[in-house]
């Protein structure tokens, strides 16, 4: 292949290099999935260390400083390195397949998002070798100012989140364009699978919510390294500003975490109930409403900062209103189950459990919407219980449902049902054992983020109970990993559409070919495969014409290394930032000049 002067030679299409240079959305999805699951395991180990320390009063397993680092990094790992990228793994792999496209709008940009994410994740995790962040995942000033946390941990936090934000922004821009512009003929917006709708909504949220966080992070970086006083009250700044900027991002972020799971559940429930999703337009509009209202509620995280009556009332009312679209979704899922001929396999069990556990977390969330109640719950274990019911009981359960459901499409193999059910029941029991008692502990006055507690406080029993539950979750994960490796040794026997599902990703082989579809499908109804089945419409035969796919490229990983170097600058020497900028500019030029045909 002809190379243009100044561009790198074309990489090969097999072996390790083919993964390093891939621009195929399915391979990038797999890379996201494997990386994010590895971080999920690491975040789980951190959680078990925390629970071991708290199992008995006056625990001595880890000291206070390390404990602070662990709970901070546990949250950062789970939110930014595990759950968000697991969502990304699904929408990378599935969105083009579900909308009948051959790839995303910008395949190389997609690869860049992944490599930047990997760099940011490794940078944040490597902080354990120096000083890990220790001021909590929302990193409030003035605790995170140089005066109170002088070590480098907070700088790792700032730089890590800036890099990860860049990655998410690029991915989100890509998926906005892909979903709006690349749909198959006949696939109107109101025929889009709900999972794709949720992907579109979180992409919009990311595009719009990341900049306020970026600004806050930049200001904190300047405060810590170049003596500005944005968050220093003595010098005319205001530490509360950090809280606002963080939560303007942070609350949409909550929906960014949960909406992919809601999308997955909305795909799984109809298939295993053998009837279409109940009230499709209501589910879609409820998702849009959640995203829209999600912008007007951020200060409910800050009721105890003394905002005044009017702001408190407004934010409380908006927060309670969000329960309405969320409730609509829950009723629609139940409506989908009602009267269906249900198949209770593992994917379905996770989805049904999602409805239950997510509702528990949702209800405790509505309790926090009331400022007087919130003042009692603030910074107690009740809040810890709430966030874990929505993030673990919600997002993670939804993601596991998706893994069992789409595993045949992704690998051509089935996950074992026996081990799968064992995994499900252990996880379901473990999660309720771990997190339900935290409601009691919180109401009994146990503050979050304490590294130990005294004997006489009577918190010992439920803490031990929760610790046992957390190890049950750990065992369930081992069962899953065992199931995964066992399945991967089986031959590829999965047919194109093993579940008799309705969406387009099941209209191609399992796993799909590089070009996704031999013939780009035409969509005639909201559940296209059921419609075609019922109307005896055959899938068109391949025409045998050559399908051009974008070639692999070295530039995404090269540019990502430049971004990482730029990030290392504030942590070591700013010369690295300049060097990284040079690498980035060189990559952009090479990228632009590289032939894409």
């Amino acid at each position, binding site marked *: 292949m002809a190379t243009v002067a100044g561009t790198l030679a074309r990489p090969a299409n097999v072996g390790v290099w083919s993964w390093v240079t891939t621009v195929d959305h399915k391979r990038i999805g797999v890379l996201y999935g494997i990386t994010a699951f590895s971080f999920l395991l690491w975040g789980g180990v951190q959680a078990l260390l925390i629970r071991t320390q708290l199992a008995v009063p006056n625990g001595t397993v880890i000291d206070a400083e390390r404990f602070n680092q662990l709970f901070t990094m546990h949250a950062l790992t789970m939110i930014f390195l595990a759950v968000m990228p697991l969502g990304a793994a699904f929408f990378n792999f599935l969105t083009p397949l579900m909308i009948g496209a051959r790839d995303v709008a910008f395949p190389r940009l997609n690869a860049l998002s992944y490599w930047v994410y990997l760099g940011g994740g490794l940078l944040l995790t490597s902080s354990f070798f120096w000083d890990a962040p220790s001021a909590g995942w929302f990193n409030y000033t003035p605790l995170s100012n140089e005066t109170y946390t002088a070590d480098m941990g907070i700088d790792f936090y700032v730089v890590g989140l800036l890099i990860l934000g860049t990655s998410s922004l690029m991915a989100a821009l890509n998926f906005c364009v892909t979903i709006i512009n690349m749909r198959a003929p006949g696939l109107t917006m109101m025929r889009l699978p709900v999972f794709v709708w949720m992907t579109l909504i979180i992409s919009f949220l990311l595009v719009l919510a990341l900049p306020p966080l970026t600004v806050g992070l930049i200001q904190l970086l300047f405060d810590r390294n170049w003596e500005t006083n944005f968050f220093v009250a003595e010098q005319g700044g205001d530490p509360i500003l950090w809280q*606002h900027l963080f939560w303007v991002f942070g609350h949409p972020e909550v929906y960014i975490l949960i909406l992919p799971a809601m999308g997955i559940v909305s795909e799984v429930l109809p298939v295993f109930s053998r009837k279409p999703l109940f009230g499709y337009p209501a589910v879609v509009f409820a998702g849009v409403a959640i995203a829209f209202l999600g*912008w007007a509620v951020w200060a409910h995280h800050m009721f105890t900062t003394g905002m005044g009556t*009017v702001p408190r009332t407004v934010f409380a009312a908006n927060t309670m209103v969000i329960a309405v679209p969320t409730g609509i979704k829950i009723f629609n899922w139940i409506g989908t189950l009602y009267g269906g001929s249900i198949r209770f396999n593992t994917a379905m069990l996770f989805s049904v459990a999602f409805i239950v556990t997510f509702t528990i977390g949702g209800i405790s969330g509505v309790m926090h919407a009331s400022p007087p109640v919130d003042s009692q719950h603030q910074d107690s274990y009740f809040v810890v219980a709430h966030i874990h019911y929505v993030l673990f009981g919600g997002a993670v359960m939804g993601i596991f449902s998706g893994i069992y459901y789409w595993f045949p499409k992704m690998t051509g193999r089935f996950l074992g049902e026996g081990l799968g059910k064992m995994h499900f029941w252990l996880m379901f029991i473990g999660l309720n054992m771990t997190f339900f008692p935290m409601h009691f502990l919180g109401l009994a006055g146990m503050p979050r983020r304490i590294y130990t507690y005294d004997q006489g406080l009577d918190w010992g029993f439920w803490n031990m109970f929760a610790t046992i539950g957390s190890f049950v979750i750990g065992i369930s994960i081992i069962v899953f990993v065992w199931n995964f490796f066992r399945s991967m040794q089986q031959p590829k026997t999965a047919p194109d559409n093993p579940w008799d599902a309705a969406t387009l990703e099941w209209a191609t082989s399992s796993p799909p070919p590089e070009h996704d579809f031999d013939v780009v499908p035409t969509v005639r109804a909201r559940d296209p495969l059921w419609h075609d089945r019922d109307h005896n419409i055959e899938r068109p035969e391949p025409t045998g014409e050559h399908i051009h796919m974008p070639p692999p490229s070295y530039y995404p990983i090269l540019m990502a290394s430049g971004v990482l170097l730029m990030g290392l600058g504030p942590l070591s020497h700013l010369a690295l930032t300049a060097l990284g900028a040079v690498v980035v500019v060189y990559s952009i030029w090479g990228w632009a000049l590289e032939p894409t045909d």
Partner: protein
Amino acid sequence: MSHAEQAELGTEQHGLTIRQYLMIGAALTVITIIELAVSYSDLGDAMVPILLILSAVKFVVVVAYFMHLRFDAPIFTRMFVGSFFLALAILIALVSLFWADDHRLPLG
């Protein structure tokens, strides 16, 4: 480039003529001079609203004509106007939350 090619590329322009662009540039310059005059004048409480309106006019003219939103696909307008008003709403909310403290606005 032929008309058909432009249409196929989706870049077909209904933009203005060179003369019209230059006129708009001149108008923007005049507004800037008026802004300066206002900022040096003694208009009291009316000054800030006048300045904000004048810069909003400049903003809209650049977006509508120089960035072609006036003639381009509606999705661009929807995207940009939506994002802009979200940013504006958050800005107003943040500023009023903080100014309520500083200036004792009646927010409780």
